[in-house]
């Protein structure tokens, strides 16, 4: 139900009866693939203060996934881990800023993004509607597993304190933050989800003409008879249905005039989050930036640092 007060929105998402079984089977299939983690130092991106590595690991269906790993050059003991998960069209950032703050930081490129797209490459637009009427084959099934495996990759590094790993991202990265915190609920220490995408997806498509959700409208315009199948697939992959498993501290932000991710869906998914230690930030006159230019970046940094306790090394250039 859409109302002028986004906090009153009621999601139409339904949790399928086989939701838990489907994802248990998917995780089991993912576990059957050896992680095979690899790191290779990138001298050009490293500095006196930090080391940057190209990272690779294997994921669901045996697909090779790439990412950037950065850490302080000099450190003692274990480092807190920081998983950065990317937006829909953007390439994963190189997390040198996080390494300078004292984190072992991993920024992943799930399947379809550059360096992870040799086998799976639906493009943009494309990913959101890839096999959207075939629930077992939907593109986000493996994409979600790539994000979960990114957490496993980081947690498995010798220098990372596996009790201090946080997850953060905006838009699709917000969705993946909530996903990883749900499926690794005993391990994620904290999370920050900005303008979380992939929540109440069918409702979202009705509330906007902006991409990526417009991909759903484009598909249904050409394939109107597939609507029930599309809804079934999306209910099975909707972040709204995962987050009751979250146990860690979590913050969520939305822009109240966001055309890309309708803010209503952020309110709704926040209500579903299982953790009692959670806080919601809404920003008037903001769109998909969701407050990042209006002070929210400092809030996220302070929140993550307070739970993960890094030792900043600073420096630039």
């Amino acid at each position: 139900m859409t109302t002028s007060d986004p906090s009153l929105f009621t999601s139409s998402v339904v949790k399928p009866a086989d939701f838990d079984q489907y994802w248990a089977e998917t995780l089991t299939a993912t576990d059957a693939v050896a992680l095979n983690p690899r790191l290779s130092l990138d001298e050009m991106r490293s500095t006196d203060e930090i080391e940057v590595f190209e990272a690779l690991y294997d994921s669901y269906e045996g697909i090779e996934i790439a990412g950037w790993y950065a850490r302080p050059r000099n450190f003692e003991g274990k480092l807190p881990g920081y998983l950065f998960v990317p937006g829909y069209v953007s390439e994963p950032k190189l997390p040198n800023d996080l390494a300078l703050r004292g984190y072992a930081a991993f920024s992943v490129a799930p399947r379809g993004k550059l360096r992870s797209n040799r086998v799976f490459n639906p493009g943009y637009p494309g990913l959101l509607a890839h096999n959207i009427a075939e629930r077992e084959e939907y593109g986000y099934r493996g994409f979600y597993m790539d994000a979960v495996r990114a957490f496993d990759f980081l947690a498995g590094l010798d220098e990372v304190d596996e009790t201090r790993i946080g997850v953060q991202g905006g838009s699709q990265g917000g969705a993946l933050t909530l996903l990883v915190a749900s499926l690794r609920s005993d391990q994620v220490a904290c999370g920050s989800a900005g303008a979380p995408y992939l929540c109440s997806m069918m409702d979202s498509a009705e509330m906007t003409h902006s991409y990526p959700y417009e991909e759903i409208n484009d598909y249904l315009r050409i394939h109107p008879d597939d609507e029930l199948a599309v809804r079934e697939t999306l209910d099975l992959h909707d972040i709204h249905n995962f987050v009751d498993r979250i146990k860690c501290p979590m913050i969520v932000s939305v822009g109240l005039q966001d055309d890309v991710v309708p803010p209503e869906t952020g309110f709704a998914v926040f209500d579903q989050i299982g953790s009692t230690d959670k806080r919601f930030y809404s920003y008037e006159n903001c769109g998909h930036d969701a407050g990042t230019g209006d002070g929210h970046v400092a809030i996220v940094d302070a929140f993550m640092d307070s739970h993960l306790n890094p030792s900043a090394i600073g420096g630039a250039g």
Partner: protein
Amino acid sequence: MSADRNAYWAAVKDEVAALSDSNVSIEELPERSNETCVVYAVWYEGIGGYPLFAYLTLPRGDGPFVPLFQAPGYASVVGVPARERSAKYAVFAPCHRGQRLADSGYQAAYPGLLTDGLPGASSYIWRSVVADSLRAIDVFLGQPEVDGSKLAIAGNDLGALVASLRPDVKSLLVVTPLLLTDPPGRASDTFAYPMQEYNDFKRTYSDQWNEALETLSLFDPTAGAADIQANTMIACTGGEICAANDLMGAIAGEAGVYKNEGRGFIDHTVQEDWLAEATGVPITPGPFLPR
């Protein structure tokens, strides 16, 4: 514009002009068209015989339409133009070589693209990136549905550089981030990508940095801004305000700087309303739909 700069870009423009009779293929994309516009895929050739791609959108109804050229951003993906634009402008959204849909011969890396081919002026990849943009404008204005006398450009400072090479640009909206404007000065103040790419290059190839600076100066839109005749708005962050003011001050046409408030809905509205007013199309509500 200096003699060296004049000669450099004149050669590029000659290469692009030589493609004027090369084949352009256009095909409607029914899955992306809607009640307000028709979306097309456009394939054409860039310099060196490179295959390029663009989205073209035309509003439903009778033209000719105001042509809005979207300069490619610093990202691997070029998206279908937003409905708020495609409903009222003819929009051309090209991929330069290396971006998705134009990556059959060269794949851009992020980070990497900003310094690829430095230090040489002839090998720097942005020579081809700019050429691809100039070629795209030629293809765009070759469409009978557009009014070439009202050409507008929107995008980062690649758009400003292109406008300095196209005196027929009438309206120019430059948005953050500024990538090509004063790179050595601005990169030294940050470790954030993509500007950090300049620092990475300088640190790794310090013996080539002076030659790289000479090359980069050819691409700084401020150096060519005296040739920008367009009515211009530069929308920037607080950290970019000095560079934006320098660029504004050098532009020949009417120009102003808008410092973003940091609230995306307001900043977006200011920019799109300015563009509509400058180009003479109706100011319409933004993409956030009424509830």
